């Protein structure tokens, strides 16, 4: 089309509006959607049927105690849960302590979690090597542990096999019997491999010198049974703690899926925000297209007048302008899509952000920009082509 060649700059500006509009929508939504998806994935990785109970505020003689050092959850609660909660398939106590892990002349600050042998399944950890501690070892406060990959990396490097080695945690020697498979960061950026697992009895007795426990971790039999499991757990604990009908719980029960939905809704807000920004750039791009097309109406109307006066029929001229507008808009849209995908890819590889390109965003932005471009390219032409040639020529 020679008209496009003739008005390279105008064509370029129009295309630029479309390109920016399409590309920004695609990139923004890809970033928003990516963060949402990664949070969901990683949360799901932590187990979507995970349920846990933490000590809540305790009432002693009508005085509310803070919950940080509340000691409301006991080992007998775990037994009661095991016995009574049919919707729960596995349950483990949890106690934990931060401290320094030492091997030879190397040391590393980490956390030891005191748990039972079911904890791995509940938290979706798997063993890369070695074995899990036995019930007998739990009963006998055995000084054995399973370590996460971060601890291995920092104390042993790649050359030494940690299995069978002895590390010290707060000066207490622990024999390593297993290594956890790497899990990476969770949705909140925490390293899930920076930990040690030991029998809860060992941590209770040898490290913390306590008899209560700090939390209960459990798996619902399935994700759909989460709500039932939460209810059963709550009722079991209320009964075990002898809480009266109208009194508040001295513990809190939460589920992973609740956390997932909380974080998902946070990232939904983020996506909506990015979407709004993208929408604005789409609007700005669209207005840009309209402007350029509109400003050129005078010139185009004159051109159309001339084309009519040398014998072009209205339909010929309209078709010509329509084809021109389609060509411009579609090629702008395609370049925009490519640029958007490129920008998304650049963001994901340079900033290391998770991205998910949404086909609906690609489709929608392309559609909107093309429609604006085509309409505002074609509509003035249609109007002009309906005029008497002389009126179109005289147009100012």
């Amino acid at each position, binding site marked *: 089309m020679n008209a496009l060649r*003739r008005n390279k700059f105008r064509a370029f500006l129009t295309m630029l509006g479309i390109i920016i509009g399409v590309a920004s929508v695609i990139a923004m939504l890809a970033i928003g959607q990516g963060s949402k998806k990664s949070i969901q994935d990683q949360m799901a990785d932590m187990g979507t049927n995970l349920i846990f109970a933490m000590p809540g505020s305790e009432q002693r003689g009508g005085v509310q105690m803070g919950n940080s050092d509340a000691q409301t959850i006991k080992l007998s609660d775990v037994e009661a849960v095991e016995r009574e909660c049919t919707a729960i398939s596995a349950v483990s106590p949890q106690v934990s302590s931060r401290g320094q892990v030492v091997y030879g002349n190397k040391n590393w600050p980490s956390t030891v979690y005191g748990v039972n042998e079911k904890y791995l399944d509940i938290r979706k950890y798997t063993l890369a090597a070695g074995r899990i501690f036995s019930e007998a070892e739990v009963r006998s406060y055995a000084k054995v542990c399973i370590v996460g990959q971060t601890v291995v990396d920092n104390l042993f490097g790649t050359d030494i096999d940690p299995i069978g080695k002895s590390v010290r945690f707060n000066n207490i020697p622990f024999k390593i019997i297993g290594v956890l498979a790497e899990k990476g960061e969770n949705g909140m950026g925490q390293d899930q491999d920076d930990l040690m697992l030991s029998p809860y009895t060992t941590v209770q007795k040898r490290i913390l010198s306590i008899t209560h426990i700090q939390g209960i971790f459990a798996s619902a039999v399935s994700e759909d049974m989460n709500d039932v499991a939460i209810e059963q757990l709550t009722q079991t604990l209320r009964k075990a703690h002898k809480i009266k009908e109208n009194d508040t719980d001295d513990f809190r029960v939460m589920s992973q899926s609740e956390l997932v939905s909380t974080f998902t809704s946070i990232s939904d807000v983020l996506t909506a925000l990015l979407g709004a920004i993208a929408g604005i750039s789409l609007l700005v791009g669209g207005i840009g297209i309209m402007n350029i097309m509109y400003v050129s109406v005078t010139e185009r109307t004159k*051109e159309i007048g001339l*084309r009519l*006066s*040398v*014998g072009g*029929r209205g339909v010929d001229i309209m078709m010509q302008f329509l084809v021109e507008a389609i060509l411009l808009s579609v090629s702008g849209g395609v370049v925009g899509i490519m640029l958007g995908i490129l920008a998304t890819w650049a963001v994901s590889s340079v900033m290391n952000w998770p991205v998910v390109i949404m086909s609906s965003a690609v489709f929608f932005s392309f559609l909107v920009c093309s429609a604006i471009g085509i309409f505002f390219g074609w509509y003035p032409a249609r109007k002009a082509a309906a005029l008497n040639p002389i*009126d179109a*020529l005289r147009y100012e």
Partner: protein
Amino acid sequence: MNKPKTIIEVSGLKKDFHVGEITVHALKGINLEIKQGEFVAIMGTSGSGKSTMLNILGCLDKPTAGQYVLDGVSMGELGKNQLAGLRNNKLGFVFQSYNLLPRTTALENVELPLFYNSKVKAKERKERAIAALEAVGLSDRMYHMPNQLSGGQQQRVAIARSLVNDPVVILADEATGNLDTRTSYEIMSLLQRLNEDGKTIVFVTHEPDIARFTTRNVVFRDGHIIREEMVKDRLNAAEMLKNLPVEED
């Protein structure tokens, strides 16, 4: 000598313009007949209706009333697309303000009318455009853009464009209005040559000395034809050009 064919026949032609509440009667009943091979100058004061008349003859505008028969075809019955076809096949229009497409070569500008003629293929279109540019003496300016051409050259491109479809009549509205004497003479000698080759030309001007290059003068005033006369001592533009004092180079 057999009688020349009638190319244009107009009777009772009226044209009103409505501007707000006011109606301007630009043409108030025009009767005019133009035969093949004539070179007619339409003259008259400003606002007398010359351009209005020419636009209607060129099928760029529609009359309010009256008959117009062009080369045997009655305009009144034709639809938009048929009129476009007529403009494409039978008419060549030269505008006072050239009306060339900007940023488009002289050659492509001249090709434009043929572009809308489906019978003419790309190769023929180019050949004919080149021939038309040669006829107006611009074969060395074919790939120039309008803004790289002088006013006279642009007007010659416009004339080439009006010629390229081999029309039965060329209509020119003050084609020399913007040009100096020498360039005007050049254009007139070009038109005279075309006329000698048999083209019918209708030419609007309000300069009496330009009108003396034509064969017949029709004078408009206030929407009427007030006088029609054959040019007695017709001037030859090519000779006049030779006799012009040579400007210093």
